[in-house]
């Protein structure tokens, strides 16, 4: 009994002032993931990496938009999204205070425009993603003309690409060349 009393006095105050004073968390604590739509290219890498399916993406071809969303109610704060993001658009913060008054507020969304295929006008991929790919493919020294050309190629849908290739082959007259060889 005396030993216990001694221990109680030795301990003093064991509790924190929280929530009236901020609570210190460890360095590199994994808390709420923050998404920066300005940097996001809507490539969906994070939606595939996310183990609990907290991050998702929905495409609306009629409106020509792609909606990225994260549900903090499902998130397990593993940070796989941060690891997989090619542009650093999603980062984990030390924030652990996620309580909201309404369940819907747990979901955050970002809407991205889709790039349309220059040939058929159908949506292909997110416009930002097409830009990102075109910039990499064209390389740093590309002239504006080259860049525009690469962007057009990158935003052509697979169907139109196939059709264009066939047209190109016809224009080249490959069958005549083959006849000559024979």
């Amino acid at each position: 009994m005396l030993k216990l009393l001694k221990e109680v006095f030795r301990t003093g105050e064991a509790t924190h002032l929280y929530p009236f004073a901020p609570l210190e968390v460890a360095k590199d604590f994994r808390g709420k993931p923050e998404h920066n739509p300005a940097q996001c290219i809507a490539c969906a890498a994070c939606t595939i990496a996310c183990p609990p399916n907290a991050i998702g993406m929905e495409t609306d071809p009629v409106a020509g938009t792609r909606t990225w969303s994260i549900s903090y109610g499902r998130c397990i704060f593993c940070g796989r999204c941060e690891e997989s993001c090619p542009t650093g658009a999603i980062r984990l913060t030390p924030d652990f205070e996620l309580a909201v008054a309404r369940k819907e507020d747990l979901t955050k969304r970002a809407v991205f425009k889709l790039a349309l295929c220059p040939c058929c006008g159908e949506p292909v991929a997110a416009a930002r993603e097409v830009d990102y790919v075109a910039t990499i493919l064209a390389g740093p020294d590309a002239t504006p003309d080259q860049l525009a050309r690469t962007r057009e190629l990158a935003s052509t849908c697979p169907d139109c690409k196939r059709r264009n290739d066939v047209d190109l082959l016809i224009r080249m007259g490959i069958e005549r060349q083959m006849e000559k060889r024979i």
Partner: protein
Amino acid sequence: MTATSETRIGQDILAALRAKMPHAVTEERWQTNDQVTITVKLNSLPDVVRTLYYEHDGWLSTMVGNDERSINGTYALYYVLSMEGAAKCHVVVHTEISPDSLEFPSVTPSVPAAVWYEREVRDMFGLRPVGLPDERRLVLPDDWPDDLYPLRKDSMDYRFRPEPTEDNENYRFVNDAKQETTVVPLGPLHITSDEPGHFRLFVDGETIIDADYRMFYVHRGMEKLAETRMGYNEVTFLADRVCGICGYAHSVAYASSVENALGIEVPARAQAIRAILLETERLHSHLLNLGLVCHFTGFDSGFMQFFRVREKAMTLAEMLTGSRKTYAINLIGGVRRDILGEQKAATLALIAELRAEVTRLLDILMSTPNFAGRVANVGRLDPQIARDYSPVGPVVRGSGHRRDTRADHPFAGYKLVGLPVNTQAGCDILSRTQVRIAEFYDSIDLIERLLDAAPGGPILTEGFTYRPHRFALGYTEAPRGEDMHWSMTGDNQKLYRWRCRASTYNNWPVLRYMLRGNTVSDAPLIVGSIDPCYSCTDRVTIVDVNKARARTIAYKEMERYCRDRTNSPLK
């Protein structure tokens, strides 16, 4: 995979088995140097398992049912035996069951430890163990449709939930008592455990004559979920969530099962980090149990003190992993975070504080006069019962058996350092508590030694090849005992089958024997001594068979009776 015939451990056991039963074994496949799967004829299955279990120091670790019809046209059973004699290895006894008969000879009459596994495989796959005395369901609710077997590949979507057909519990509880008894049901939401469970205590006056229980009210269908919705790499994060207290042990067990199956070499530094984090988890888990032992013996200030000190272990986990619960650190092939120099220094400082504070608290606990009276000779687990049912962790070590996966089958960083196995011969709650106390100090020593012994180098192996239909075991010693995972890869970047067996699964069947002969007021303490996960939303029902009446007692009231031992709710 790379095992050569010289380095394989366990060949003598197989040779002895073949000599005894020349025609039983038809095939042997080695997954690693100390893991072998032998295929046996269906009719010799019970004999083979019994021979390995009782004649070669085998313990039943898990049993896996598998629907392999799309691979080879059969159902398969894998009885996993941990061989703990001279040659320490895992022997997996595999047998094939034809989809036409769906029957296999039950192993339970010769090895009682198989009882829960065989009941579960009947629920999940519809495979009938012929000769199994217990005809009741184990995992599925009693009003689940008769011909719906969730883990068959062609049965149902993982999201399907059949409507319940009735509200009443119609499970038949077993009572072996010879005399007339009163029934004391604890549940349907159970006492002291995270999983709701329904306990029936059959009492004569205040003495428990027999006990039976029903678990799996919150079966989460994780195995089905992992096999259908997730890629094999994401399952590591699901495995974390198997348990809210010892989740990291599951994650390591799962990751190493896939690593063993695919022959992935995990860097030595990652192995050491895994072991350090496993010991961190053991620190906070054992402190939790010590606190709860105080709570259930009515020593609530001790409970508060242990939980205060336990916070240091949580801080340690938060610093090392970025999450208070050591979550999301494993990947297939290694770990995601290194332990840096400053973290190492902070860890050493924290565990030194922990050692000093816990020593003072234990001194207080052990000198509390009524403590020994509540825990000594209470909840006895007879060593022979323990031998028959293969319990794990401090429960089996408190009954004098030297079983510790870390020492028997060194995994992760435990290969780098030796460790003692703490046993106690008292077989009671005191012994189990003393085992946990000794293990707490061992964990601190282990962390210190592992931090020193951990070699430098990479922490993750990448660029391995995923190959279809490979399978192997992965195992860890969680704070509550051995966790055993068995994984088989599919052909679609997913798992074909994931069998995850948590340590407490092996400890439930012996609880019945531990409760017998004790008083009702000790029941929560005895249940607590196997260290299941705790919850406080429970309530208790009392049925008096002599007077043919039933009533329900709030769990709080039952717990209060356990602490104060006055004003019995039975009266």
